[in-house]
């Protein structure tokens, strides 16, 4: 048993890196879905049982902020934990991200351990039991 994870990033290479990092993290994974922007991300959420989302912020068509706002406005998806993985680091934007309800934030460029750490923390929060990363 594992989780269905959605990775939303307009960069195909970054999605590939994220997929690899998640698979190597030891986090229990069932399926990793990929979307290139918020619009595609919402489509996948409607079609699949997505349980965790990792999203970039700066994307064409629908950016990460709008994507998260759309998720939060839909009671079917509002419970899904969203981790933001982005180059953005300006305080005002970070406040906005927190306000919308992102559970964690990882700044690009990142070390694989950072993703592993936030995923493990998510498991801890859910199970109440600490998980140690495999790195």
């Amino acid at each position, binding site marked *: 048993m594992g989780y269905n994870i959605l990775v939303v990033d307009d960069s195909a290479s970054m999605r590939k890196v994220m997929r690899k990092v998640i698979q190597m993290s030891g986090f229990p994974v069932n399926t990793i879905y990929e979307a290139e922007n918020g619009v595609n991300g919402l489509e996948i959420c409607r079609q699949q049982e997505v349980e965790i989302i990792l999203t970039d912020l*700066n994307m064409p068509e629908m950016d990460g902020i709008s994507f998260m706002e759309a998720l939060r406005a839909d009671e079917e998806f509002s419970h899904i934990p969203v981790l933001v993985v982005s180059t953005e680091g*300006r305080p005002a934007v970070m406040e906005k991200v927190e306000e919308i309800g992102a559970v964690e934030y990882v700044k*690009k460029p990142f070390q694989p351990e950072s993703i592993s750490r936030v995923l493990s923390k998510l498991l801890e929060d859910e199970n109440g039991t600490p998980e140690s990363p495999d790195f």
Partner: protein
Amino acid sequence: MAPRNLRTFKALTSDILEEVCFLLPARVGLEEEPAAQTITVHIACGNTTDLYLEFDARLAKVITGNFLGKSDEETSIDSTMVTSSIMEIGNMVGGNYMNALDMPPDTHLSPPEIVESPWSDARERVHYSIATDTIFAEGYPIHLMLVEHLL
């Protein structure tokens, strides 16, 4: 502003290449051989600043392999992935440049785009401050151009 901002641009590019692609700023090596092909990425920070990074295509391939974590034996690095990786490096440089300068929150980072070499055109632009420099990675030069709107 340009010299200080150019220093920031250079330092961020070197740091990101080192952190993401394990490329140290080495000048020795292959730079005597002229680049047969180059790949240039453009990132706009709002409508005030444009960043350009021009990579030797051979270095772009090395960057892609390291970024994707491919070993030397794995040769399946296609041109789409090279383009995507270079654009993502540009995205990281642009985003971190905006953070470093603490640009206003309504300043948006454009999606990175691959462009023809802008060097000759840029020098003819008016009302812009243009600063250029070159850094090295694995012996290959990376040409940087910072264009700032003066109005």
